[in-house]
């Protein structure tokens, strides 16, 4: 049951915002990887992953996100997350994503603090 993610890249205050539309599952891997490679090609040092607040994120999606985190660590990039529901804030904290990416309450808050 493949799904499609639409991911828009936007640069704001030297931060590349990856605006991820749709659910995040194992099927998201090519979309997230392509978007990350495009962001990386821009020479960005800061990346913000912006999710739909209603997005369903399962273990396959978590694995894909962690692979993106691994690439940002390798490329010494700062990464942040915003837009996720309280439930997924808890989940991201449980699995340890928050050791590598800070979660911000809003896009504005993320842009201000990551600048």
């Amino acid at each position, binding site marked *: 049951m493949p799904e499609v993610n639409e991911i828009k890249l936007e640069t704001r205050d030297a931060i590349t915002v990856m605006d991820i539309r749709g659910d995040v599952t194992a099927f998201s891997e090519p979309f997230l990887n392509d978007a990350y490679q495009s962001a990386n090609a821009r020479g960005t040092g800061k990346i913000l992953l912006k999710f739909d607040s209603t997005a369903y994120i399962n273990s396959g999606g978590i694995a894909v996100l*962690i692979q993106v985190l691994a690439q940002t660590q390798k490329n010494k990039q700062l990464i942040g997350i915003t837009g996720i529901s309280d439930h997924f804030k808890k989940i991201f904290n449980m699995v340890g994503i928050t050791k590598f990416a800070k979660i911000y309450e809003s896009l504005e808050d993320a842009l201000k603090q990551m600048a």
Partner: protein
Amino acid sequence: MPPHLEEQIIEITLPNQVGYERIAMASAATFAKMLGLAPERIEDLKTIVAEASINAMQHGNKDRPDARVSVSMMLKSNSIHVAVADQGKGFSTFLPDPNIERIVNELDPPVGFGTFLIRQLADQVDIEKTADGTNIVRMTIKL
């Protein structure tokens, strides 16, 4: 809570394809809402039902397209009991907890998150191996 819900079994079967776990999630959420489970615990219930269903599809049934996954739910002793059964012989135990530092440093593969979340979010988890070798993951969430 409607008294007639006690010990009534809700059972659905899913095609063995990732994505259909959402049907089980929606059913579990509706059932839990009828029982008055707190909204944050309904989200936990949805996650454990989804992850156990995906685990059954991929690891129990080994992605076999002809297999099914059965999800049953019941209120008993002030807890929601969920059982997720596969038709395969794919696993006998859950994977160990993932170590995110090792995964980010590409020392471990990025696996084990689903079963980790089940263990973290459910009040009780048991894996039962049936006589014919299939698996039933039994999970409990207290009201």
